[in-house]
Structure formats: C-alpha cells, structure tokens
C-alpha cells in the first residue's frame, strides 16, 4: 500500500491521505504562487479525475503519499518514490499551502519525514530536485544536510523564462552527523530482551 502512515513532527503531522483532501490539493495545483515555486503534481481537474489519480497512487507499491496537517488543518502534502532496491527514496513533491508559508511548517514536516527515512526505514540516501530560485526550500534542504550533485540548466519554464534545477542528495551519514538526537523511539531498555 503506498499511502503513508502517521509521522509526527513538533508542529505538523504527516498522515494517511483521504479523498476529502483532494479538493484542497486541486486548489494548490491551481495556485500560481505554488506553481512558480514547484513542479505541479497534476494539473487542476474535476473531482472525478482526482479520485482516479488517488486510486492509481494507492495501487502503486513504490510511490508514497502523505498529507501534512498543522493542528486540525491540512497544510500540505509530500510524495515520493522508494527505490526498487528499497534503500533510497526520491522526494518528488513537498508542498506547503502558500497561505501557510513562513510559519516553519515545511521545516518541521521535512525533519519528521527524514527522521522516518533514516531512523525508521534505515535508508542509505534520499534525493530531491528544487528550482534554483526557491530560496525557502533550498534553505530547508541545506539545514537538513542535503548537498548538490548536479545542476540542470534551463529546466523549468515560468514567468516567460527558464530557471535551473538543482539535484540534491542527503546521505545517511549526514543524518547521523546532524540529527542523531532525533529518534522515532527511545533506546530499548537494557533488560528489554530478557
């Protein structure tokens, strides 16, 4: 099943997406602020089309989708693909509602998601791609420990001009160096296996 389960951050929670989220996804995909910053996941469409897309995602064993809440409010979603060998993950979309930008939700949810990748799934590395002028996302990636491994030139087109794309990776070693105190669970008690 490729719908993600609960991952708790401090101010945000990644959780199982539901059909009721789709109308909000559609509104985000139609928001030019978001489209300028990110690649769209899907173009805006009728509710029935979104339901079909949702069914397709649920069937795909390697693509995983989470909705992101801040308190009771849906504020974003994350979607990516687990590698065939199941030792890496490509984050394709990490979207925060433009009305909720600059509140720290992106940083909080991103840290929680990467804790899940490295501390829970024990992945070797995670990759993502960001537009070269998306300073907020690049700042989050830099703080997490991502490094650039490639730069595609004139990749994305909007506002009448192309913008470059940065390809970034974060290895388990970076997680361990920077975030070893972040754990999903506390250490097992000394007598836990007696």
């Amino acid at each position, binding site marked *: 099943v490729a719908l993600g389960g609960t991952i708790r951050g401090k101010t945000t929670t990644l959780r199982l997406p539901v059909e009721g989220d789709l109308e909000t996804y559609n509104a985000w995909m139609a928001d030019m602020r978001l489209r300028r910053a990110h690649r769209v996941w899907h173009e805006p469409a009728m509710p029935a089309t979104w339901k079909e897309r949702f069914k397709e995602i649920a069937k795909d064993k390697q693509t995983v989708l989470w909705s992101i809440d801040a308190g009771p409010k849906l504020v974003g979603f994350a979607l990516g693909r687990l590698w065939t060998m199941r030792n890496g993950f490509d984050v394709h979309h990490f979207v925060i509602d433009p009305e909720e930008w600059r509140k720290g939700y992106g940083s909080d949810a991103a840290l929680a998601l990467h804790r899940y990748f490295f501390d829970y799934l024990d992945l070797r590395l995670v990759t993502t791609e960001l537009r070269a002028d998306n300073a907020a996302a690049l700042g989050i990636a830099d703080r997490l420990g991502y490094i650039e491994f*490639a730069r*595609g*030139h004139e*990749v994305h*087109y909007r506002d009448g001009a192309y913008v470059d794309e940065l*390809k970034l990776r974060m290895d388990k070693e970076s997680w361990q160096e920077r975030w070893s105190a972040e754990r999903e669970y506390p250490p097992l008690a000394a007598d836990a296996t007696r």
Partner: protein
Amino acid sequence: MFGPRLDGRDGVSLVPSTLDDFKLHVPWMLAPEVGRFWGPRFGEMTEERQEERFNKTGEDESQIQWTISYNDEPVGFTGIFDIDWIRRDGESGIFIGRHDLFGRGIASEAIRLRTDFAWRELRLHRVHNWVAHANRGSRRANEKVGYKQMGLFRHSYFRSGEWYDEWLGEAYPHTFPDQR
C-alpha cells in the same frame, strides 16, 4: 507512443516497437552480461506483463520509444521518457540487449538518430539522462551528439565489491553537432 522509422548508417535503424520486440526484453534484461550497468535483474517479467507494458507504452503520450534494429534484427530499445511538453524536456535512455554486438557503434548511431529527432521533429528544448560513469562507450556516444556533464551521482550502486557512480548529462539543440 512509438516513434516512426528512422534509418541511419551502418545497418542501424530505429523502428516502432512490436509486441514481439517487447517479449525480447525479458531475456535481454535478465542476462548477467548486461547487468553491470543495468539492474536489478529481477521483476515481473512474464509475457502477460510485457503485453501490458507494450500497450501502456503505446498509449503513453509522455514518451516515445523505438526498437533498435541492426541489419533488420531487433537488438535493443531506446526512447525519450517523461516528456514534459510545456517545458519541452525529456529523459533519454538506451538499452542494447544483444551483448554479442557490443562495441559495434550501434548505440552511437541510435543515440544520434534519437537526438536528431528530438530537435528536428519534436522541437524539444532539452533532453537529459543518467549513464553509469564507468560505461565509457555509452557516455561517449552521448557526448558525440552534444550531451554535456551536469553532475555526478557518487556511489549510486554496488557491484562486485565496488561502488559505481552515475554521470548525468544534458543536451540542447545548440549543442548538437552540425552534420551538414
């Protein structure tokens, strides 16, 4: 979609794929001789699944795929995948399944035909790809038609006790060599 027939030099052509061509992918992809730079050599490799893949590829308007023909025999496949028709960008790939024919320049000619088609017929803005850094033949075949390095993905996968890196390339119409 399947691409149209493109006749090249030295017996190499790109031709629209058939279901029989797709069935050849199974033995090709599972052979250790091609597995050094290709993986993982397992998967849903049944005839039924290949028929599904064939139908899906034919219907998919975000990709163009060809069978590579050498002296009128299918020897591999190539294509441009995940095409974004707004950005006019796509990811290219190639697979020579007949390992007994490695080193004959088949991939070079196929890549030349494919890239020429991307610029002259599809009016793409950019194509990009990933190639095993140690696969010098494939990398050079791409460089000959204008691909330039845009990055290096270190320690991409592990084979026989060694890490393999991947070379990331990109090409544009203006980097394609003048062939007149």
